């Protein structure tokens, strides 16, 4: 999963880079008596977070970053067993207050004995391309990584997209310029009699900007700013008739092959 940043980062070949990482190094919660999460940098050579050296960060083609996430949580089964036992001894259900007190007592007793779960997330940083490749796809890993990266280097990571991926590739400048201005192709709907038969380019979708915070003096003025779509010279007006009503795809055929499950999901606008 590629991420990009804008601005200048400390040179990964300098000791200063490792120093930045060490300021946000991983700190253990092995003996902690409360439920918590610890997130910090370690190196592939030393998962404790105690040592950072420039050599340990050398990933060949890029700089190897490793994030460690430890999470300590109370096993709910334990809580349930102790609550059931207390209720059996009392002969009646515990009140909400009593349940809370029991939980707090158990946390104090048991959490120091609970070992945290450990997650290691690797990434390669390419300084010249201002790119980080994260070797994880979960939302929590992405969020933890981008947050720690910002805290370490004061640089905001932005996820990749078709435009950034093209602009950060070795395409020619002409191609990059064309990519910035490219418009979508509309493929013909050939299920309609007399419908279009050739692909045409159409204007790019309009990007809705979030409304600006309202100024009292301006209240009652425009609610939202809508950025005009970019329509460039290469847009060819569709001279063929457009589809008036498009049938839902799933209804367009009566055949339903046995092994394939079909779902029609509401489009998340």
């Amino acid at each position, binding site marked *: 999963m590629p991420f990009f940043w804008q601005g200048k980062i400390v040179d990964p070949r300098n000791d200063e880079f490792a120093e930045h990482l060490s300021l946000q190094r991983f700190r253990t919660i092995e003996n902690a008596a409360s439920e918590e999460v610890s997130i910090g940098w370690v190196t592939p050579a030393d998962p404790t977070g105690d040592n950072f050296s420039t050599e340990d960060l050398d990933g060949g083609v890029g700089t190897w970053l490793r994030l460690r996430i430890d999470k300590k949580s109370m096993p709910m089964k334990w809580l349930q067993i102790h609550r059931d036992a207390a209720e059996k001894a009392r002969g009646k259900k515990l009140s909400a207050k009593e349940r809370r007190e029991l939980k707090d007592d158990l946390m104090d007793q048991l959490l120091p004995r609970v070992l945290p779960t450990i997650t290691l997330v690797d990434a390669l940083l390419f300084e010249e391309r201002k790119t980080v490749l994260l070797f994880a796809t979960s939302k929590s890993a992405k969020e933890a990584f981008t947050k720690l990266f910002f805290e370490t280097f004061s640089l905001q990571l932005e996820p990749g997209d078709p435009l950034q*991926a093209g602009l950060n590739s*070795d395409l020619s400048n002409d191609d990059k310029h064309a990519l910035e201005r*490219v418009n979508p192709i509309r493929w013909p709907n050939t299920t309609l009699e007399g419908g279009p038969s050739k*692909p045409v380019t159409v204007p790019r979708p309009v990007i809705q900007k979030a409304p600006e915070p309202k100024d009292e003096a301006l209240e009652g003025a425009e609610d939202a700013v809508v950025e005009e779509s970019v329509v460039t010279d290469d847009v060819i007006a569709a001279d063929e008739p457009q589809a008036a009503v498009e049938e839902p795809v799933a209804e367009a055929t009566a055949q339903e092959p*046995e092994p394939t*499950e079909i779902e029609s999901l509401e489009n998340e606008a």
Partner: protein
Amino acid sequence: MSQAFQGAESHGFVGEEFLTWLWFKWETEGGEFTLTGGRIVGIAIDDFLTFAAQTEDETEQTLRRGLPTRTAEARTALRQGHRLRKARLLLAEGERQWTATIDAPTLSLSGVKLPEDAEECESEMDRTADRAANWLALHEIVQALYRMFLKERLHPDYQSTGAEAQANWMAR
């Protein structure tokens, strides 16, 4: 989000065109690509695909399990001019094989399955390095395929050549 990073909104359709182009190439040319540097990779669409809705009011259609690309529903969607929004791909290079779901508007990967660890991996450090190399290779392959697509897509004659060929395939 900064002005410079609005590409998923303004250019998400490029990712959708890319994914649909991969399907087109797979079906019409066998799915083997020679990348820059002579690397040969193979791709195939696996058991999950989602068609993009053409407008915000339309429903999105997902086909999963079995061979969704062979279904009548998938062919109808193509004939109606729908692009792919998501698809699970099989990618292979030599003996290594990956599976990953690509979300077209963001070009992000999910559900990634890496090749088996190499036999020569003896330590945890070896395995970590091997997995990192496999992640990097997967990213390089997707990037290289995307670059190939862009080279074709951004060509001034694309609409009368590649796009028409793809439209004919979609209309089949």
